[in-house]
């Protein structure tokens, strides 16, 4: 498949991918990826492990060469002018590996030198302070989470126009995840376009404005995150101090009963918003409540089920 020159550079669009394909022997890693990300947008790239998220990002930075299709980043073809693309882009790989004998500062100075010394060191310190990272520690002594912080700093430190992040909060504790997401929002507020991959639904919901869902090397959906959130499902187990009447709960739209025990325990699957459910539970003697996020595959299945029902209704 060769779609060279089909897409034309557009100043308003930060990322243009058309018909991107990549195979490793018999394995089709990408089967024709088409997507566009507007400048200044935060775009989530959601998919299970092995779906092709990393391959797509690495194609964008000319680390792997697609078999077909075309990519334009900031209007530039990474295969024709990779240096121009890379100098305006920040990248965080899925797995950060360093020269372990260096300190975080020496490692960051190395990356900065590779960029021609563009980063302001005060800004690097600001990022490190934000993430509570001691720059003088040798990398070999750092935990996985702290290594990830070094990766986040190297991606942000030269204040790029476009950020390509492969699972940016991987390995971080929930508090630090929020700090990183905060830094990304801060970068976005200054005009940086953010494209990040994730297999965690809540992370995408938290940060992205739009989301593309990739599955087995194909984009299956590009939608507003809010729409995906409305379709998202949660599994909730509620235990009550005494037997209660469940009628009001099970009648709620989007609520499906999975199990109930003696009117004292109930497991529900809730699709979309939980506001009404929480309101009703407020009037009941709740002993404890446990929520469980279903796997991405289950989310996809629910999402498709709803969509196919909607399509059928529209067809009828």
């Amino acid at each position, binding site marked *: 498949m060769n779609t060279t020159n089909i897409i034309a550079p557009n100043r308003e669009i930060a990322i243009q991918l058309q018909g991107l394909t990549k195979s*490793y022997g018999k394995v089709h*890693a990408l089967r024709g990826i088409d997507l566009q990300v507007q400048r200044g947008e935060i775009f989530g790239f959601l998919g299970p492990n092995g779906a092709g998220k990393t391959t797509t990002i690495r194609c964008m*930075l000319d*680390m*792997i*060469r697609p078999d077909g299709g075309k990519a334009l980043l900031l209007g530039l073809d990474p295969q024709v002018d*990779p240096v*121009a693309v890379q100098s305006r882009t920040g990248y965080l790989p899925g797995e950060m590996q360093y020269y372990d004998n260096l300190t975080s500062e020496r490692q960051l100075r190395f990356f900065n030198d*590779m960029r021609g010394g563009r980063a302001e060191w005060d800004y690097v310190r600001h990022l490190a302070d934000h993430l509570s990272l001691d720059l003088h520690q040798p990398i070999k002594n750092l935990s996985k989470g702290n290594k990830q912080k070094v990766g986040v700093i190297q991606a942000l430190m030269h204040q790029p126009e476009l950020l390509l992040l492969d699972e940016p909060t991987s390995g971080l504790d929930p508090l630090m995840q929020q700090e990183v997401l905060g830094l990304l929002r801060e970068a976005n507020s200054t005009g940086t376009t953010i494209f990040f991959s994730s297999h965690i639904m809540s992370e995408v919901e938290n940060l992205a404005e739009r989301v593309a869902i990739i599955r087995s090397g194909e984009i299956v959906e590009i939608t507003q995150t809010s729409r995906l959130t409305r379709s998202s499902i949660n599994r909730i187990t509620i235990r009550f101090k005494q037997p209660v009447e469940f009628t009001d709960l099970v009648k709620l739209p989007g609520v499906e009963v999975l199990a109930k025990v003696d009117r004292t325990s109930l497991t529900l699957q809730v699709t979309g918003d939980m506001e009404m459910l929480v309101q009703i539970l407020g009037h009941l003697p709740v002993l404890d409540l446990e929520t469980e996020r279903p796997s991405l595959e289950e989310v996809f299945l629910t999402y498709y089920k709803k969509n196919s029902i909607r399509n059928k209704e529209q067809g009828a």
Partner: protein
Amino acid sequence: MRRLWTTFRYTYTSLRWQIIGWGLGVAIYGVMIVSMYDTLGAQQDRLQQIIASYPPEFLAFFGGDAISLLTPAGFLGMYAFSMLPIIVGIFAVLAGSGLIVSDEEHGRLDLIVAHPVGRPGFFWGRFLGLLGAALSIMILGWLGFSLLLGRSSLGFSWGDMAIPFLSLLIQTLVYATLGLFLSMLLPSRSMAAMVTGAIMVISYFVSSLSFMNQRLEMLAKALPYHYYQTVLSFQQLNLTWLFALLGISLAMTGLAYVRFFRRDIRLSGEGSWRRG
């Protein structure tokens, strides 16, 4: 150009301990060998008896005979320069095969190449770092071999002593660039190092044995060590051999570059390591 310089600087710096280790090792050996010549010379009669007691095959293995080994060039050739391509060759094999692939196998290359260096700048910066390291080892070695020349009866000047090191540098480059080239083709760095190391050792033995067995001569001529000039280089350096080996080194570097420029940067778990 600036980014090529940055890559060169970091590569050279990362090889500094190898430069110091190998360079000082060769230099100290040189000091010992040069100072030993006069000590042995004082006992020349005894030395002649010892050499005469060696089997001719043994002397032939080192490319000499009982008479030539007593000359300064023959002495240095047998006791030092005949083995140096193998000793420094270990550095060449390891540094060449790991020059790019070591970072790739450790998962670091992905991020390094995502920086705006460009594959050409990155490759040539690293290659120049390796070249600089090999040159530095030679300079340290040459200084070690030359330091006591003024007090020695070897009769060589510092300039004369530079000539075999030039030949040694080219041998080192051949193995380093072969390692680099093979690392771009073979599935792993260790396999590239193994094949290059095997070629180096086979080359040494076949070339040495070809002095005793004429049937090996044809095979020896196809191997790099045959064109290494030790004793000969003091008398008359064969520039054709020197430039031919240099040309082969550059050709292998060029092919490695083309392969690196065209292929995917490998990442553990993505695609086949074999296909690249």
